[in-house]
C-alpha cells in the first residue's frame, strides 16, 4: 500500500525545521521519487531555498504523501503516509542513479533538476506511518 502511494503520487508535503526561529515547523510541496526498496526518498531543490537552508541546519524531516481527491469520500477512501527520516545532499558516484530515478518520474523537471544551483536531496527513511480509513494507523520500520 505504501509502495502504491509513493509511486502513484507526484507531490509530497515536506516539513523541515527553521533553526533560526527556535525550530518552528515549515512545510511546502515538493516533487519526489522513492527508491524501489522504499528506503530512500529523493527530491531536488535550489540551494537558495528556505527548505535547503532549514535541512542543512537540521536534517530531521517529515514528509506526507496522500491520495486525497478533495471529496467527502476521502474520509473513507483516501490514504496517507507520513515519512520520518533524515535528509542529506547526494553527491559522488551515487548521484547519477538517483538523478535518473527522479527524472524518470518527473521528466519535465530535467532543466530544473540539472541546474547548477540545484541540489539533489535524499531522505533516509526511518519509519513509515500509514493512515487509512480516516483513522486506521500502522507503523512500518525498516528491519534493524
Amino acid at each position, binding site marked *: 500500500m505504501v*509502495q502504491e502511494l509513493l509511486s502513484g503520487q507526484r507531490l509530497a508535503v515536506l516539513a523541515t525545521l527553521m533553526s533560526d526561529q527556535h525550530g518552528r515547523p515549515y512545510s511546502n510541496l515538493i516533487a519526489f521519487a522513492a527508491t524501489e*526498496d*522504499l*528506503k530512500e526518498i529523493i527530491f531536488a531543490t535550489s540551494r537558495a531555498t528556505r527548505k535547503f537552508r532549514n535541512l542543512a541546519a537540521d536534517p530531521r524531516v517529515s514528509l506526507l504523501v496522500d491520495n486525497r481527491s478533495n471529496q*467527502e*469520500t476521502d*474520509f*473513507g*477512501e483516501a490514504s496517507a503516509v507520513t515519512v520520518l527520516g533524515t535528509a542529506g545532499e547526494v553527491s559522488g558516484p551515487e548521484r547519477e542513479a538517483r538523478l535518473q530515478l527522479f527524472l524518470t518520474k518527473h521528466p519535465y523537471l530535467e532543466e530544473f533538476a540539472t541546474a547548477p544551483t540545484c541540489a539533489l536531496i535524499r531522505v533516509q527513511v526511518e519509519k*513509515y*506511518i500509514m493512515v487509512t*480509513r*480516516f*483513522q*486506521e*494507523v*500502522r*507503523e*512500518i*520500520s*525498516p*528491519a*534493524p
Partner: protein
Amino acid sequence: MSYVLSLEDIRPRHRRLVGGKGFSLAVMAQNGLNVPTTLAVTTRAYERFVAATGLKGRIQLELRRKDFKDLRWEEMWDASLRLRHLFLNTPLPADLGAVLKDALGPLLPERCVVRSSAPGEDSPQASFAGLHASFVNVVGLDAVLEHIKLVWASLWSDAALLYRRELGLEVRKSAMAVLIQEMVAGDKSGVVFGENPQDPGQMVIEAVYGLNQGLVDGTVEPDRWLLDRETGRILEYRAAPKREILLPGEEGVRLAGLSPEQLHTPPLTAAEVLQVFHLARRGEALFGAPQDMEWTFAGGRLVVLQSRPITTAARGREGDQRPWYLSLRRSFGNLKALRRKVEEELLPAMDREAGRLAALDLTALSDAGLQEEIVLRSTSYRRWHKVYWDDFIPLAHGIRLFGMVYNDAVKPEDPYEFLNLLGAAGLLSVRRNRLLLDMAARVRERPEVLEEIRTGRVTDPGLQPVWQAFLREFGDLACGTSTCTLDPEALANLIREMAATPSRGERLTETEVESLTERFLSRFGGPKRAEMAEYLDLGRASFRLRDDDNLHLGKIKAQFLKAVEEYQRRGRDLRALPPEVQALWRELTEPPRPGQGETGWQGFSRFRARQLVGQPASPGLARGPARVVREASELFHFRAGDVLVCDAVDPGMTFVAPLAGGIVERRGGMLIHGSIIAREYGIPCVTGVPQATSLIHPGDPVTVDGYLGIVIIG
C-alpha cells in the same frame, strides 16, 4: 430543479429521477389505468438533502470504517440503525423544505402512503422488493416530510447493505425517490403474478381482506388462485386459514379480527378474480412482459398500487446466508408468538434436560454405557444448538424493534439510549457478577476468608450464604468456556483481585431504570401507551434472552464436556469415539485461531499497528496493559485494570468484566455480550476490531477510546 413531479409530468427521461415504481405508475396513469393520486419526490431531493447537510460524508464515514467483507450482519444492523438515526435527526435544509412544502402541501391527500422508489430496484434483472421502507396511513404534511426521510434512510437499510453488490449501492451515486400517494383504503387487496414462476402457463392471484400491507409483509396469509394464463379459467383455489385483517388505524395500521361472514368467504368473487386477470393482461401488454402487480378493490373500483416485472433473480445461491438474515426481520406479532414459544416451551425443556443430565452419576456407568451417554449428549447439544439459531437468535430482533420505536418517538442524541430501559440488571451474567462482587466485599472486610474460598471449605457466616447461592446457580463458572471443573484456586484469585479494587457497581439501579421507563411511557396517552409498553416488554424479553440463552445452552454443553472428561479420566482414548463426537469436542474446546497478521515487506520487516478502528460500543477512555485472552484459563489471571482483548466475549467470560479497564473485541456489534456488559458497568469498549487478538500483543499498553471507537497501541 424538479424535486417533485406529478404522474402526468413524468416522461421516459425521468425514469432514474422517480425510480422504477414511480415510472411504472406514471405509464399506467397515462394509459388510463386506475392508480392512486401520486406525487414523486425525485432523487434530486435526496441528493440535495445529503449534500447540503453533510450527510453524504457521514454515510461515507459510517460505511467505510472497515471493509464490507469484514462486516458481520449485526454490524450491518448497527450501521443502518445509526444511519437511520442520522437521517431522522438531520433537519431538511430550509430551501428544500420550503420547496417540498409548497409542492406537496396543496395537493396532499388526507391520508398518505409514503413509498420507496429506488432507481434500478425493479429492473428485470434484479427485483429487491421489500429491502426499502414504505409507510401506510401517514397523516399531515409534517409527518409526510418525516417519513420521506425514513424512506431515504432505508436506502441504507441492513437488508439493502446485504445486497449492496446486486443493488450497486454506492455512497457517491446511489439515491432514492419517494412516492407520496393517496391511501386507498381498499376492502380487499392482493397481488397478481402475470406468470407463475413454477408454470409459465399459469397466472397466480393472492388476496386478503383489508390493506395489502398485511399480505406483503407476511402478517396475513392470503387466499390463492391459479388461473389459466390464456383464458383466465380458475384451475385451482386454496383458502388460507383466515383470522385477521389489516386496517388503517388513526395513524399507521392495526390488526383486527375478521367478521364471522368474512371468515368463511373468499375475499374475491369469481367476477373479481376475472377483473384482476384482465388487469394483469393489460399490464403485460403495456410493459411488454408479465408483471407482478399489487392492487386493491375500493368501493368496487379496482386500483393498481404498483407494477414491476417478474423476476426470480433474487433467489439465493447455494450457501447464501442472506435470505436467513432477512428472515430475522420479523413483525411484532410474529416475535410475540416466538417469545411465548421460547419462554414457555423451549427454555423450560432445555433446563429440564440439563437437570436430568446433571443428576446422572457418570462414575457409575460402565465404559460402554459412558460412551453411549457421550454420544447421546453430543446429539442433545447439537439439537439445542440448532434451536438456538432457529428460535433464540431471531428473537433478538425484538431489541431492535423496540430501539426503532424508541428512537422514532424520542429522537435521542445517542441512538442506543434505549438500551438503558432494557434493564441489564436482570441478566444472569450480571447476577452472577453481583454474587462474585459480594464475596469480594466480604474478603475486603475479612481478608482471611479468602483462604476458605481457596480450599473450598467455606464456614464464615458472612460468606456462606453468598457462596452457597453462587455454587447453586453458577457452580459451573468456567463451563461456558472450555472445561468444567470449578477450580477453587482460580476462583480465589479472581475474588482477591476484585477485593483489591474499588468496587465497580452497575451503572443504573433498578429504580433508575424504572423512572427512565416511566419517563418514556408518559410521553404517550391511551392505547398508544399500552402499545409502547408492549414493545418495551418484548424488547426486554429479547434482551434478557440474548444474554441468558448462551448460559442455558452452556449448561447442556457442560454436561457433554463433563461426560467426555470422565471418559478421559478413565484413561480412554478419545479416538475410539465416533468422528462427529470428536469433532464436536474439538469445536468446543479448541481456542479460535487468531486472524492472520499482516507481514512486512522488502526489508521493512517490523510492522506494527498503532491505531485500530472498530465501533464505539461503550463510551469512556481507558488505558491499561492488554490482556489478550485466547483461551478460557487465561481469564483467571486477569488483573484489575487490564484491557480485555479477545475474539468474542461469550457470557461465560463476562465474570471478569467488573475488573476490566476496557474491552476490545474482534466481533462487532452493539448488542453482543461484550458491549452489553461493558455498558452495564460503564467500561469503555470498542468492538469490531479486525484481527484484534493478533495485532495487539499481550502486555502492550493500549488506550481504548470508547467515544470514537478506536484503540491506540503503545
